[in-house]
């Protein structure tokens, strides 16, 4: 038995709590040097059709902690660049005896397609502008560590929400676990229809992060300017940059987050990025532990299974 991690949208609150608890437990064990389970018969294929360093490293690290083999593929130089369809690539990997697939692809829904043709777990490492579930799990674990809860928190996601898979996965996860999600940004970067997205819309940074417990900045893709979504980076920074000053509107111990890579001086100023409230580095580290949890969960193993792995 196995299951897929295609998106947070499809996962129940109960499973999300389990995943986060597993992530915390893996972290505890790794930090204390306690024994970790080993899943030796597994070979994870890391399929990155889109460039990524941190996500790929993080999935690879997590797999190695669990004693799994990994095989890496990138879009360039692969059969995909020779015109092979995604379906055929997946079928090939299946017969190369890979047991788990981690995939990043530029098209939304590509993880769903892969899951149709791959018998083992498919973990979505980012599909277009749709979802990036492991990122959201790492972010949630980071918030949990600092705040002790998600329920009742106000989380403001600032930036290009419309084109962000990080925003979507975080919004689903946080709202499912009882947080209030706000989308903050210019009208051109927020979805024009949010009836099926769990967040309220704010165009002003000040009102959008008012009393917020967490401010989550999104990376500004500078090529968006070409689409006419922005007049200039300067204008964006003046209106939406999270700074020590703008954080005055948020709650006093507000966490500052960013999925990286950072554009310093655009999304955040140095004070906000490096201040006491910044948990950007924790996000990266926790990313590894929730990915261990994701592998474990996807192979249909539980917290009880993990607890049986003793010294």
């Amino acid at each position, binding site marked *: 038995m196995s299951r897929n991690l295609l998106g947070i949208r499809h996962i129940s609150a109960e499973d999300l709590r389990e995943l986060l608890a597993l992530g915390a437990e893996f972290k505890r064990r790794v930090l204390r040097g306690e024994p970790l389970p080993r899943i030796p018969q597994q070979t994870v294929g890391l399929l990155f059709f889109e460039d990524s360093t941190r996500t790929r490293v993080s999935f690879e690290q997590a797999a190695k902690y669990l004693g799994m083999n990994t095989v890496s593929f990138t879009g360039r130089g692969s059969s995909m660049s020779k015109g092979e369809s995604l379906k055929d690539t997946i079928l090939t990997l299946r017969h190369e005896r890979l047991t788990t697939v981690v995939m990043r692809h530029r098209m939304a829904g590509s993880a769903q397609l892969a899951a149709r043709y791959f018998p083992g777990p498919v973990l979505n490492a980012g599909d277009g502008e749709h979802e990036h579930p492991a990122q959201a799990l790492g972010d949630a674990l980071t918030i949990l560590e600092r705040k002790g809860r998600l329920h009742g928190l106000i989380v403001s996601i600032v930036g290009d929400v419309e084109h962000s898979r990080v925003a979507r996965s975080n919004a689903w996860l946080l709202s499912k676990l009882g947080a209030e999600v706000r989308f903050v940004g210019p009208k051109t970067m927020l979805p*024009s229809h949010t009836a099926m997205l769990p967040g309220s819309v704010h165009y002003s940074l000040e009102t959008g992060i008012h009393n917020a417990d967490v401010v989550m900045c999104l990376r500004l893709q500078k090529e968006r300017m070409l689409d006419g979504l922005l007049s200039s980076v300067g204008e964006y920074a003046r209106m939406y940059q999270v700074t020590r000053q703008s954080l005055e509107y948020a709650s006093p111990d507000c966490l500052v987050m960013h999925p990286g890579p950072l554009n310093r001086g655009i999304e955040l100023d140095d004070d906000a990025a490096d201040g006491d409230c910044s948990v950007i580095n924790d996000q990266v580290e926790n990313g590894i532990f929730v990915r261990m949890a994701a592998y474990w969960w996807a192979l249909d193993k539980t917290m009880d299974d993990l607890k049986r792995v003793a010294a």
Partner: protein
Amino acid sequence: MRTLLKNGRILDPSQNIDMVGDVLIEDHQLEAYGSNLDVADVHETYDCTDMWIVPGLIDLHTHLRQPGFDHRETISTGTQAAAAGGYTVVCCMPTTQPTLDSPSLVDYILDAAASPSSGGAFVQPIGALTVGMKGEQLSDLAALKRAGIVAASDVGSPTQNSRVMKRAMEYCTQLDLPIIAHCEDLELSQGGSMNEGPVSAMLGLRGIPRSAEEIMVMRNCLLSLHTGCKLHVTGVSTWGAVEMVRQAKYLGAPVSCDIFPHHFCLTEEDVGEFDTRFKVSPPLRTQVDLDIIVQALNDGTIDCIASNHSPYASHEVDVPFGEAPFGISGLESALGVTLTHLTHKGILSPLETVRKLSTAPATVLRLEGGTMRHGETPVAQITVVDPNHRWRFDVGRTFTKGKNSAFHGMDLQGKAVVTFCGAEIYRDAAFPDSRVATRARS
């Protein structure tokens, strides 16, 4: 040789006829109709009790794909699919390779359609409005018309340049050639793969705003009004587009329009989890649009129903949503879907149903057909419809090469069961042998 269709409900919108009676076909020509025809020497008798006898259906929007994309469809398979769907005439779009912008290609298509291997329905080609459908230079439309095109269109590559479109309309007015327009502002729709709305926002798919369609409907209607060019808007999908057409008609512009079956019964929510079978252009919209569309079908603002038959090979469709092509193979589902979702729900009467699928399309492009009048067509074009036959649409059982359909698995009520297209007769298993009596020739 005489063939008698007995005791069916004869529906002829061209004469507002709705009566129970018989239809006599003699030497592949429609000879007579009436109640209790007294005919001797009948070779074959089709018992049409509880069935409709209607003028053969006419499709204004079919992609036959040949030449150039024979892996998706050929003229042979496409015309077989048409006959199975109740169509006796399909107007094929110029989306071939090379584009249908030269008279020799028109000859090629007409020859292929007339060859014995071809599958039944007549083919009426639609020429490219501009060379290569590039929206720059007008095709040699006079020569194309002489070769046999019935309309001009750039379909999926709609002319963006309004000056080019105005010139095209002026020229087509002179040639008395209708223009069929798929209306889309390509700058607004760029990168989009479904309706811009809550579902696209949720799925992280780029949206196609309704304004992308409406702006072009309005532009084209205004150009038609000012040039007097006969304009047929194909595939309206938003309430706004419908209202633009309504307004244009009110102002006296020579405008007509059609709708595709998926746009009166499916919405953006049917896209579900990135199901590429539901990726169409224009995209599936919302319930609000459906409500207005249904009214507009009922009040006649929407003149015709077109199949938008857009076959693709399976491997072209089994890809991530954003990479999938737009379109469904519609010839064999259009009638069943129309009967199920409009006629049986009381939105269209049987006579109005046939008008939208046969008589009105014939009128729009001034084609022969769409009528039971004696001598109107060189050969009989008649379809027998079992309006109550219950069946499940299954792409595994279709004639088209394109198995891409949003209607796969849908339960339908009503089906074309016999299609007479001159000497070509398609008879479905739903019209059993027991209903056909054949007298041995003496």
